[in-house]
C-alpha cells in the first residue's frame, strides 16, 4: 500500500466519523493519529515487533504507535503558538465588547436616519449597519444574532414581509467575515502561509462590494414589487448629524485596524496587524466601560470569548494533526499533480472547485470546511495557476502566485459565507429564527433566497474581475 493509498483510506474514515456526528476536531485528530501510526508502521514493513517497540537505550517509545502519539502530541502546543493566530481571540473579544459598548444600536440608528429614504430603505439601512458592525466584529453568526434583535422589529413596524426582513439580517450578517477584522480570513492566511495583513485588507472591497450588491437587489425589489416596504422619511438634518457621534467609535476602530496594516496616504503604517487588532479591542473596551459595562458583564464577555476561541482552536489543532499526517503521506502533492494533469481549462476547474464548496457548505460549518479542504485544495489551485513563483504573465489566471493566494482566499471565504445562508444547514438563518420567535427556520430560508442571486452575482464578478479583490492589497 502506498502512502497515497493510506492517505485516501484515512481521509475516507475521517469523513465517516464526521458524518456520524463525532466532533470535527476529534474526528480529524483521530484520523491523523491513526494515519501516522499506519505510515510509520508501513516504513518498517509492518514488522510486528515494530508496532509497540520500546527502545531501552533511549528509554523511549520507538514503535509506530509511540512515534505517532509523540508526533501528534507536539501539534496542539506547537500550532496554537503561531503569532498570527493570536488575532483570533482578539477579534472575538472586540465583537463581544462592541456589543456592550452599544455600537450596534448606534449604527443601525445612524444608517436609518441617513439612508432609509431609499426604496426599501430600512432594509438597505440594515445591510449597511451590518457592514459597519462587520468592521468591529470578526464573526458572522454573532452579527446576525445582534441585528435580528434590533433591525427586524423596525422593518416589521413599517410593513415589510417578515420573511424578507429576516433574510436581510441573515445575509447581512455574512459580511462580517469579509470586512476586516475576520477570524476566518486569519485562519485561511495561516493554513496557506500568506501575509495576514494583506488578506484582511483584501477582504475590505469585496465585503463592501457585497453590501452594495445586496443594497442594489433590495432597491430593485422595492421598485418592482408593490407594497414591498415603504421608504422611511422625515428625519431632519439635525437628527441625522446627531446620530453620528455614538457610531463614531466604529470609524475609529476601522481606521486604526486599517492604518496598522497599511497607510492609505502613502506614509508609514502604524504597526503590525497583531497590534492593530488589540488596540482596536482596547478602544472598544474603553467605550464599553464608559457606556456602563462593569465586572459581571466583562466576566461574561471574557468567558464567552474563551468559549468561542477554544472552539475554533480545537478544530485548528485537531485538523492540523490530520494535516501533519498528510505531510507524511504526501497527499496534497498527489492531488495537485492530478488536478494540473487534467485536460480542462484552469478556469473551468476553478469554477468546479467553487461549486464543490457550495455543495459541501450546505452540510458543513464554514471553519471546519475550510480547515479540512484547504490543505489539499489550495496547493492544487496554486499549481493550476502555474505555481507559487509564477509571474502574472505566465500564469493561468493572470496574476502572480501571491495574488492568486489572496484572490482564491477571498473567493473561498465568500463561498463559506454563502453556505451560512443556504439550507439545510445555514447557521445564520437558524440564529435569526432563534432570536425571533415569530419566525420559523423555513421562513428565514424563504426570505434569504433572493440573496442567493446577489451572492452568485458577487462571486461571478469576483471571478471575472479579480481586480476588485486585488487592487487594495496590490497597493500595500
Amino acid at each position, binding site marked *: 500500500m502506498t502512502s497515497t493509498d493510506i492517505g485516501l483510506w484515512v481521509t475516507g474514515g475521517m469523513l465517516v466519523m464526521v458524518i*456520524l456526528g*463525532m466532533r470535527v476536531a476529534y474526528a480529524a485528530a483521530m484520523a491523523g493519529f491513526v494515519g501516522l501510526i499506519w505510515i510509520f508502521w508501513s516504513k518498517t514493513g509492518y514488522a510486528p515487533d515494530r508496532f509497540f517497540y520500546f527502545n531501552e537505550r533511549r528509554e523511549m517509545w520507538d514503535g509506530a504507535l509511540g512515534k505517532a*502519539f509523540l508526533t501528534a502530541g507536539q501539534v496542539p502546543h506547537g500550532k496554537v503558538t503561531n503569532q498570527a493566530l493570536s488575532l483570533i481571540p482578539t477579534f472575538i473579544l472586540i465583537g463581544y465588547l462592541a456589543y456592550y*459598548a452599544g455600537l450596534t444600536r448606534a449604527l443601525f440608528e445612524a444608517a436609518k436616519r441617513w439612508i432609509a429614504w431609499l426604496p426599501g430603505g430600512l432594509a438597505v439601512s440594515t445591510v449597511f449597519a451590518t457592514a459597519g458592525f462587520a468592521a468591529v466584529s470578526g464573526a458572522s453568526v454573532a452579527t446576525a444574532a445582534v441585528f435580528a434583535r434590533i433591525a427586524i422589529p423596525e422593518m416589521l413596524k413599517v410593513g415589510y414581509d417578515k420573511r424578507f426582513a429576516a433574510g436581510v439580517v441573515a445575509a447581512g450578517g455574512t459580511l462580517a467575515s469579509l470586512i476586516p477584522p475576520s477570524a476566518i480570513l486569519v485562519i485561511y492566511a495561516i493554513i496557506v502561509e500568506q501575509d495576514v495583513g494583506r488578506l484582511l485588507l483584501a477582504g475590505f472591497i469585496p465585503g463592501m462590494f457585497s453590501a452594495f450588491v445586496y443594497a442594489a437587489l433590495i432597491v430593485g425589489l422595492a421598485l418592482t414589487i408593490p407594497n414591498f416596504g415603504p421608504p422611511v422619511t422625515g428625519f431632519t438634518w439635525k437628527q441625522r448629524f446627531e446620530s453620528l457621534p455614538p457610531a463614531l467609535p466604529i470609524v475609529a476602530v476601522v481606521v486604526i485596524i486599517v492604518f496598522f496594516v497599511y497607510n492609505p496616504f502613502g506614509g508609514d503604517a502604524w504597526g503590525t496587524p497583531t497590534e492593530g487588532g488589540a488596540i482596536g479591542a*482596547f478602544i472598544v473596551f474603553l467605550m464599553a466601560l464608559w457606556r456602563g459595562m462593569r465586572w459581571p*458583564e466583562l466576566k461574561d464577555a471574557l468567558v464567552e470569548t*474563551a468559549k468561542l476561541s477554544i472552539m475554533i482552536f480545537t478544530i485548528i*489543532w485537531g485538523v492540523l494533526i490530520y494535516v501533519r499526517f498528510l505531510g507524511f503521506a504526501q497527499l496534497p502533492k498527489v492531488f495537485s499533480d492530478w488536478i494540473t494533469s487534467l485536460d480542462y481549462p484552469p478556469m473551468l476547474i476553478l469554477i468546479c472547485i467553487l461549486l464543490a464548496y457550495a455543495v459541501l457548505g450546505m452540510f458543513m460549518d464554514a471553519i471546519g470546511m475550510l480547515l479540512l479542504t484547504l490543505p489539499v485544495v489550495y496547493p492544487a489551485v496554486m499549481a493550476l495557476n502555474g505555481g507559487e513563483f509564477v509571474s502574472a504573465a505566465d500564469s493561468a489566471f493572470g496574476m502572480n502566485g501571491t495574488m492568486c493566494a489572496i484572490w482564491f482566499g477571498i473567493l473561498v471565504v465568500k463561498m463559506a459565507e454563502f453556505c451560512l445562508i443556504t439550507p439545510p*444547514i445555514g447557521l445564520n438563518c437558524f440564529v435569526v429564527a*432563534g432570536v425571533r420567535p415569530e419566525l420559523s427556520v423555513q421562513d428565514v430560508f424563504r426570505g434569504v433566497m433572493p440573496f442567493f442571486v446577489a451572492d452568485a452575482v458577487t462571486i461571478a464578478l469576483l471571478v471575472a474581475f479579480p481586480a476588485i479583490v486585488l487592487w487594495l492589497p496590490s497597493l500595500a
Partner: protein
Amino acid sequence: MAGAASVLEDDSLLSRLDQRLAKLEWGMAFVSGLGAFALMILAVRSVGGRELFEAPLRGYVDWIEMAMPLIAIFGISYVQRQGGHIRMDIVIGQLSGRSLWLLELVTTFFALVLMVFLVVGAWAHFDRSFDFAAQNWSRDSTIDIGLPIWPAKLVVPVAFGVVCLRMILQMVGFGRAFWLGLERPVAVPLVLSAAEQAQAEAEHMTGHDA
C-alpha cells in the same frame, strides 16, 4: 450563559461530580478569557511604550507565545461539558432514545482514547522541554528573550487531562441513559437541534442590548 441549560442537574452522585468538575472547568475557561484580555493589554503596552516612551516591550512575540496555549487550550473542558465543539448533526440529529445514547457513547469513547494518547504525547512534548538539572529547569526557550517554554507546554497535558475526566463522566452519563433508556439524562450535553442551539445563542444576547 449560553448553552449551560443543555446539561441537566439533580442530586445524584453523577450529577454532583459533574457540577464539581464544572466549577473547575468554568475557572479554567475564565483563565483563558483573562489570557485574551492580557493579549490586548500587552499590545497596548507594546505600542504605547514604543510610540510614547521609546521603550518597546522586549520580547512581545515571546509573551504572546507563552499566553496562547492558555487562551486556546486551557478551558477546553468547559466547552466539552456543554457539547460546544462543532459537529455535523445530520445523522445524530435524526436519532433519539437508546440509539442516540449508544452513538454518543461510542463517539465519546473514541474521543477519549484519542485524548488519552494526546495527554501522553503532549506530556512527552513538555518533558522534552523540562529538565530538573538545567537552569530554570529549561531545555527549550523562546527565540527572543529566552523565556523557558515548559510552563506553556505543561498547559496542554493538564487541560487535556481534565477533558479526559470530563469524557469519562460523560461516558458514564451516556451509558446510564442507554442502560435505563432515559429521555433526559443528567450530566451529559443534550443534543440540541441546530435551531435550539441558535435559540440558546440568541438568549445569551438578550438582556444585554445596550
